[in-house]
């Protein structure tokens, strides 16, 4: 709370967290899931959402135990100045790496789907500049832009889906569970790895204006928003193209927009899809970027995170290019490496911090709530 004084509402927080998880997931996950379990991909979505709610509550209530502190501050409080900073640095690197992956994914999509002759670094640079500007302006600005843009993107995505509906054949979702349950479960870990990116919420919790309300309502709201969006996207892709084709394509969801063909005049609306992608990924990057620089500044005891924004941005552009040799590597990374990495870091550290806070009896959510909020404000 020392670095960022801005406050965000519960709704803004819900949109930010949902958007952070969803933006890249919708584009990449249908193909990854279909590659694992074909037309049963939609079942993995259903399975995951049984796990998301406990994960969400674990994150929220950990935050509530330390209502005025962010992840780095209570890592230090719980684990001591050295180990605590070590854990914080893992998070910094994790968010930085994830940001690099997001920037690269952004560039790859625009290059393969829209502008094949443009060098990827151009898109990456522009996106990072945009995100850096947002991060520079602070959390409240990011929250307000998200509050404005995210519902519009969601509605536009839904409209695209509805317009592609006449081309879909939901018969292709049958037979249910044609693949063995272990293989479905294994594939669903790929999706879970995307969802646990939501751990970035730990950096936002101290800035929420109604922490108790947020802790109770954010997990169900976020998981329902994610569940409906992802089930629509995954089941829709399979109903449109079948399991094999969904797995073969690089961006199956883009085909929704390319398929739309209504009344002979509503067609070629894929630019709308690109617009959604650019805005939502921009916002996602802002949140991750913000998480990276605030965590880093807090770890190093800086008074302001803003001096770190530009250097980190430069690092991000370089990282996004160096991280993968080609687009095939991205897909391979997302299917095989990212689940292990994301689940280890986010779940591992979540469990570690929870365990230590329970053992050392530090932090107490009962003292969170309304009273603490007033305290925190007077402390400012």
């Amino acid at each position, binding site marked *: 709370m020392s670095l960022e*004084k*801005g406050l965000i509402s519960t709704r803004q927080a819900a949109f930010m967290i949902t958007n952070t998880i969803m933006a890249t997931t919708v584009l990449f996950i249908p193909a990854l899931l279909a590659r694992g379990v074909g037309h049963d991909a939609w079942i993995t979505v259903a399975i995951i959402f049984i796990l998301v709610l406990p994960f969400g509550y674990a994150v929220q209530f950990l935050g509530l135990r330390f209502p005025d502190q962010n992840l780095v501050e209570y890592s230090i409080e719980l684990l001591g100045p050295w180990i605590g900073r070590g854990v914080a640095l893992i998070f910094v690197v994790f968010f930085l790496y994830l940001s690099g992956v997001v920037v690269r994914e952004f560039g790859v999509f625009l290059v*393969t*789907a*829209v*502008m*094949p*002759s*443009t*060098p990827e670094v*151009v898109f990456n640079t*522009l996106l990072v*500049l945009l995100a850096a*500007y947002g991060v*520079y*302006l*602070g959390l*409240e*600005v990011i929250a307000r832009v998200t509050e404005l843009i995210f519902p519009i993107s969601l509605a536009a995505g839904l409209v695209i889906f509805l317009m592609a509906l006449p081309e879909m054949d939901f*018969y*292709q979702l*049958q*037979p249910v569970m*044609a693949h063995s349950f272990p293989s479905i479960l294994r594939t669903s870990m790929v999706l879970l790895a995307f969802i646990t990116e939501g751990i970035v919420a730990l950096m936002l919790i101290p800035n929420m204006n109604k922490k108790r309300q947020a802790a109770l309502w954010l997990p169900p709201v976020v998981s329902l928003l994610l569940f409906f969006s992802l089930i629509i996207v995954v089941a829709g892709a399979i109903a*449109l*193209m*079948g399991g*094999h*084709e969904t797995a*073969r394509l690089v961006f199956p969801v883009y*085909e929704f927009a*390319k*398929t739309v*063909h209504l009344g*002979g005049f509503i*067609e070629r609306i894929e630019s709308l899809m690109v617009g959604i992608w650019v805005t939502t990924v921009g916002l996602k990057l802002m949140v991750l970027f913000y998480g990276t620089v605030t965590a880093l500044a807090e770890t190093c005891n800086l008074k302001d995170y803003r001096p770190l924004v530009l250097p980190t941005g430069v690092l991000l552009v370089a990282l996004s290019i160096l991280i993968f040799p080609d687009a095939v590597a991205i897909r391979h990374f997302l299917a095989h490496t990212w689940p292990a990495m994301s689940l280890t870091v986010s779940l591992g550290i979540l469990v570690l911090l929870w365990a230590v806070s329970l053992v050392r009896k530090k932090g107490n959510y009962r003292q969170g709530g309304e009273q603490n909020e007033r305290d925190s404000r007077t402390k400012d």
Partner: protein
Amino acid sequence: MSVTAGPKIKNTVLILLLFVAAVCSGGCWDRMEIENIAFINAVGVDQAGSGNVLVTFYVVNPDALSKKGGGGAPPAIVTSVEAWDVALAVARYAELSPRLPQFKQLQAIIIGEDLARQGVGPVLDYFSRRQEMRRSIWVLVAKGKAQDILVKGQSPPEKLASSGIRIILERRPIHSATRYPVVLGDLLSDVSRPGMEPIASSVEISPLREATTGGAYGGDGGLTAAEGSAAEENKVIALRGAGVFRDEKLLDFLGPSETRGVLWVQGKVNGGRVVVPAPGQDDWASLAIERESTDVKPVVEANKIRFVVNIREEGYVISVDNEKIKVGNLDTIELLEQEKQTAIRQEVLGAVSKAKSLQSDFLGLGDRLYRKYPGVWKQVKDNWNTAWLPQVEVDVSVKCKLRNTSATNDPLNAGEKG
């Protein structure tokens, strides 16, 4: 803390923005001026000698299509290039064309018969990989060479043959449902769909004038030219029948009646005409198909797989032969319904027997089995087309309903004059 930036920061941002502007003003890498684009509206791919393909580009000539000017210029420029594959053919074509070839406006891909028999995989791979392609591009199989269709074929009154093809395939087949419209996306899905073999509408050219329909849907049904047809060069593009595949190789063509048989099984007939009893017999009536729905149920018995096809159809009377068919009578309507049921049943069985003899499940029966009984499918899928499909029994039951007799009751009555 408020977020107002100090003057130093503002300058930094300003300089950055200038830098971005400078980078962008150099122009986008993907910029294309519309005057410099050759819009390929249709493309034909044929087999050529020594493993090459012969690719025919049907490029719109925008000057000829504009209201003023144009004069006698042809509406499209058709160029054929021989090369190792489609990508190289495009490269060769780009060497000849002052305008950049672009597939953004592609309406139809026509695959020549010889190439289709060799396998359409490599061609489809090119078209599914290009980012400017859409899954809604029509795919057709040419009877003969695709080149002939694009060079000689016309589709009056449309100026562009490609537009004609698109318009015909897009509209609801009120008069005739004897083609099988398939878009690129569906064809790609069909290739990999378990228990389903690809099928695509076939296209042919026939002389423009004096074209007459030979027979009804029973026979081969091709357009046949009347004797003494002089219009050798002007030929019309006809879309009827379908080419059926196994995996990605063309096996054979279906006649119009067999094609509609396939459409019945898939519940996709939403128009067309049926003549009962079969033409050539004395009294006949022509009945219209308005709408239908089909339900295919796989039934697994000991060592036997059976499919129950239930078709419910609605239509009306469109024309009758003579006064003997008293359309005004309730009994006659019932009789006509029964005759129509028999006729539709024959069409479906025709398609089924064709599938059995070709050993290709373009009806998607295996697909139905897979969705309902995945366990059974696992056992039979390896030799489904060769061993199981020829053995399956297909029970077809059709329920027809004649809703009305159009504007007239009884037919013209010449017998009871005066």
